[in-house]
């Protein structure tokens, strides 16, 4: 089934096209979050301006004509309201105009599913880390197929934490990549480390590290905040691995672009002799292909939505989404 997927939950407007699980196009245009972060209305405006262009580029790349598209999917949530609305509107328009079925996709489910698909994993424990989310999940079959949350952040997402810190240092905020660069050559200094079973919290770490700006060497601070943040996530993940007796582990979401985090997780996996997988960065960042991929399976398995049922949900919890 030839399906187009639209992602617009945050600063990226992404369009993907898949056919029978094969990714034919994955195009995007991203709002520059710069120093001020995201003002939802401004980002939404940016999406509106770029939607048409990204959709046509994706069709061109895939080598298909608009009228050949057989189904459409979009991100229902979680995400920023005004941004989600742009994707919803674009998807509804396509559905109505082409008279094709429409599917609503949970953003987190899409990140995990595309990673499983690309990395060739069957039933992994998934660490989903991004700006707004940080969760440890595994597929549960009852009462319906969904991702059960085993652990998660009790306050902010790890990406958000690293970005806020980067901004305080006047570095570029981007899933911690600038902090990772600035950490080179740093030495460890003591910072808060908060793990509660399989949950973790980042604001204490952020507050303390921000207080220390200017008082200790920047590279030491960057090195230590990163070591603590990722080690916390790894510890909680390891606990969930043992609890769920998983034989596979995967990492996904924006922060999965960090080589440092992947390196640490591969050590966790190695210790327990299990397989560790992840997708190329193109799919860790927000993208339309993952939405198209899940939408195709939803549509093929009878989970199409009626147009009037379609909407957005800023806090769409992952457990509520049916995994096809």
């Amino acid at each position, binding site marked *: 089934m030839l399906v187009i997927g639209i992602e617009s939950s945050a600063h990226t407007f992404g369009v993907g096209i898949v056919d029978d699980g094969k990714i034919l196009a994955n195009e995007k245009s991203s709002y520059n979050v710069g120093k001020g972060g995201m003002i939802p209305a401004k980002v939404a405006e940016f999406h509106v301006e770029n939607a048409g262009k990204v959709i046509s580029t994706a069709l061109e790349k895939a080598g298909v004509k608009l009228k050949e598209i057989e189904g459409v999917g979009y991100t229902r949530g979680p995400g920023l309201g005004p941004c989600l609305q742009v994707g919803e509107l674009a998807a509804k328009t396509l559905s109505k105009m082409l008279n094709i079925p429409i599917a609503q996709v949970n953003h987190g489910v899409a990140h995990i599913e595309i990673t499983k698909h690309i990395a060739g994993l069957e039933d992994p424990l998934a660490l989903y880390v991004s700006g707004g989310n940080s969760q440890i999940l595994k597929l549960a079959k009852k009462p319906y197929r969904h991702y059960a949350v085993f652990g998660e952040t009790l306050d902010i997402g790890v990406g958000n934490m690293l970005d806020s810190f980067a901004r305080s240092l006047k570095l570029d905020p981007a899933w911690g990549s600038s902090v990772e660069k600035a950490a080179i050559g740093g030495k460890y200094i003591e910072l808060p480390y908060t793990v509660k079973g399989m949950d973790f919290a980042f604001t204490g770490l952020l507050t303390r590290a921000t207080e220390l700006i200017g008082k200790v060497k920047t590279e030491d601070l960057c090195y230590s905040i990163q070591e603590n943040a990722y080690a916390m996530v790894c510890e909680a993940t390891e*606990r969930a691995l043992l609890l769920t007796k998983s034989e596979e582990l995967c990492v996904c979401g924006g922060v999965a672009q960090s080589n440092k985090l992947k390196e640490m997780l591969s050590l966790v996996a190695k210790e327990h002799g299990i397989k560790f997988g992840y997708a190329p960065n193109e799919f860790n960042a927000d993208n339309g292909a993952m939405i198209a991929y899940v939408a195709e399976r939803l549509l093929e398995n009878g989970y199409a939505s009626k147009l009037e049922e379609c909407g957005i949900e800023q806090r769409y919890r992952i457990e509520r989404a049916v995994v096809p």
Partner: protein
Amino acid sequence: MKLISEGAEAKIYLCNIWGSNIIAKVRLEKAYREKTLDEKIRSARTKNEARILYRMEHAGVAAPRLVGVGKFSIYMTFIKGALLRDIKKKKEILSEVGKMLAKMHNEDVSHGDFTPANIMVSNGMPYVIDFGLAEITKSTEDKAIDLLLMKRSLATAHYKELETSYLRYAKEGKKIKERLKEIEKRGRYKTRTLQTG
């Protein structure tokens, strides 16, 4: 020394010292963690756990008794039994578990991982084990989370049994239950389907 269990944090060995069965809990080096941070965490948690086991003994909470402490290892008495998680007839035991939790909280200790996988039942009596995540704290939130974890891992009727007994013995039971209600109202706990036990 026989390895009997391996957790995320520590290896548990059963040793026989002068005819007594002793448990050695050794906190393992984590390759993913920065060395200084790793040592700090492991030694601090070892010390903390030993201090709490000592407190439990004095508070009359059924738990392993502390025998000795090393930099990254704790030695304690062995409790032979089955985990509450694996026991079918839970009901009678649960009011005792509630009482133990109340006593623990009255001493300002939160367990941190209070699930049926951390209750050992020996001769029909429950023993609280694994104080690896326990904290000495007055925090109502931490205490309420102990209740919440158990609530999420038990059938409703079973949990009621535990809670009734807990409320009878806990000094601040009412306040903690109020907090539990408040926590459950937070979005993430409404739909979370976690099974820890």
